[in-house]
């Protein structure tokens, strides 16, 4: 039994209609309860809740402060490779895109890490495309071994792996893995994923199960907002979260909000179901009301102005000064970006903005030596 068995009986269109039919009374009931049901969550992401945004945000603010205090964690993505065998219609790394493909050598990885360390970052997220022959398991292990010399928390956003592969990477300090389903709509999933291993909806969907079984500390969920109706996607993401929380009680969870924008040009991907910033606000608050403890993470895909404004209302983790190109911290280039960055501020500027809002930017909230699998290894003792 995995989440696949849980989601299979659901019909997308029925779920969408159920959410659309929610009334203000449903929203008020959801706002008056401490422990939300999935029905309550559906009400909070429904059009009926749009009139209750200020109530939702007020509660979201209070819950977040109680649980996370005034701390906002900072992390940075490090793109190792843009080589990818998948053909995903929305992605800059799409294998049919005629861009220069590259994968960082160990020397380049060191150089990137050193460039990043001009700021006090301790949490690093390693990102690759899916290319088992270049960004292989051994390549990832080697990259993580290098990362241990610079960072205290090492996370991955790479191709889904098998349970034993995750177990193997734990020895190299693997702390968290982010694997976004993109869309939970099983019947429409093939429309966006035309070629490559990512065409396997089920293998991707079951990745969080495998991660939890491997005992990875934290698992990140999400969907690509804009592909399908964002309200329905949110319902299934929340269902996934609830399923995992009930089944794997030792794991920590995180949700991210990658949002596609309408595209002006001719060659770009234009989402059928774009969501506005106001929609995103509703979504963030709804997740916070659903779960007091889930990490809510917002990347530099969103604008500086929006990130600053939404910050107090549920977000607990942000990236700052990100580059989404391999080698981007040593040689910035827009040409190879996976997606467009809308908050181009430096880490120092973001840090200052966080402080200006009255929050404490937290660079370090983990120590490698606290991971059992690391005990006895050099990394655990040499970098307190």
């Amino acid at each position, binding site marked *: 039994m995995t989440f696949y068995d849980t989601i299979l009986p659901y019909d997308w269109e029925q779920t969408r209609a159920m959410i659309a039919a929610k009334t203000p009374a449903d929203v008020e009931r959801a706002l008056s309860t401490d422990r939300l049901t999935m029905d309550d969550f559906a009400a909070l992401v429904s059009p009926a809740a749009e009139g209750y945004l200020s109530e939702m945000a007020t509660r979201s603010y209070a819950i977040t402060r109680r649980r996370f205090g*005034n701390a906002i964690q900072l992390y940075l993505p490090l793109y190792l490779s843009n080589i990818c065998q998948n053909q995903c219609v929305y992605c800059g790394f799409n294998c049919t895109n005629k861009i220069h493909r590259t994968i960082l050598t160990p020397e380049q990885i060191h150089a990137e890490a050193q460039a990043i360390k001009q700021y006090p970052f301790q949490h690093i997220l390693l990102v690759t495309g899916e290319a088992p022959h270049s960004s292989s398991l051994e390549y990832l292990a080697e990259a993580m071994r290098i990362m241990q010399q610079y960072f205290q928390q090492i996370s991955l956003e790479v191709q889904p792996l098998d349970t034993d592969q995750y177990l193997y990477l734990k020895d190299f300090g693997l702390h968290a893995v982010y694997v976004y389903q993109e869309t939970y709509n099983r019947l429409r999933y093939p429309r966006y994923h035309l070629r490559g291993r990512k065409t396997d909806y089920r293998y991707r969907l079951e990745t969080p199960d495998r991660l939890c079984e491997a005992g990875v500390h934290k698992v990140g969920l999400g969907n690509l907002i804009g592909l399908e109706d964002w309200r329905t996607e949110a319902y299934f993401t929340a269902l996934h979260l609830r399923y995992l929380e009930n089944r794997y009680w*030792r794991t920590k969870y995180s949700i991210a909000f990658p949002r596609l924008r309408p595209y002006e040009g001719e060659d770009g991907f234009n989402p059928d179901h774009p969501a506005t910033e106001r929609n995103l606000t509703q979504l963030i608050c709804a997740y916070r009301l659903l779960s007091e403890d889930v990490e809510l993470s917002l990347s530099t895909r969103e604008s500086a102005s929006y990130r600053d404004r939404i910050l107090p209302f549920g977000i607990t983790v942000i990236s700052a000064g990100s580059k989404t190109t391999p080698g981007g911290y040593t040689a910035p280039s827009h040409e190879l970006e996976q997606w467009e960055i809308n908050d181009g501020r430096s880490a120092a500027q973001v840090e200052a903005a966080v402080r200006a809002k009255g929050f*404490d930017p937290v660079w370090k909230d983990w*120590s490698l*030596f*606290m991971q*059992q699998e690391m005990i006895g290894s050099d990394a655990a003792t040499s970098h307190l």
Partner: protein
Amino acid sequence: MKPLVIAGKTFNSRLFVGTGKFSSSEMMSRAIEASGCELVTVALKRVEMENPQDDILSHLKAPHINLLPNTSGVRNAKEAVFAAQLAREALGTNWLKLEIHPDPRYLMPDPIEVLKAAEELVKDGFIVMPYIHADPVLCKRLEEVGVACVMPLGAPIGSNKGLETKEFLRIIIEQSNVPVVVDAGIGTPSQAAAALEMGADAVLVNTAIAVASDPVAMGQAFRLAVEAGRMAYEAKLAPVGHEASATSPILPLLDDLLNH
């Protein structure tokens, strides 16, 4: 008021403060100062132990402030023991708040792993202060392995719900031969006062101070509440009773019964 003694060390304040969740290290430092507290917990995962410029540590340099490293983040006894040993080496203290919560949602302490780790750490010379559920039997077991105090929770961490475990705290306080520090869940100064009135030896507060609109004033409010609660405890509260009073019609009947 009697000072508090833990493992031979005397504390003039019965309020301990956690250092997380503040809006800045400066604010943390000022609130701790106002609280009068002499023992502060520091999460090992948050600090760079070997770095003298570490932001949190450098804000906790006042001579009357003692550091109590905590193991928050570890999931079992093995990880806790390892973290404790590193902390002792790097921070130069053998005091340790032992926290093992494998459940990242409610941060519930794991009693089995805590007992295992406590036994090992005590043997290794640590002054162990374990964070636990309000479980009277576990408290006695921990006392047997030599912990310096017990730190039962009043309510889930960060919940601000107060002394939800009151009935069990009462038993723990009654039975304990080591100091009882009520940790977690205390959301208001009145709840802290209530814990001290009941006979708790100290309380540990974090969220309620850190997240208050004015953490400095709230730190001071907790200081006063803890002092008031302790003072009331030492002054022996007047008995609570409404069964009998001078005008009660039962008195002549009692008199008739007993003095007949």
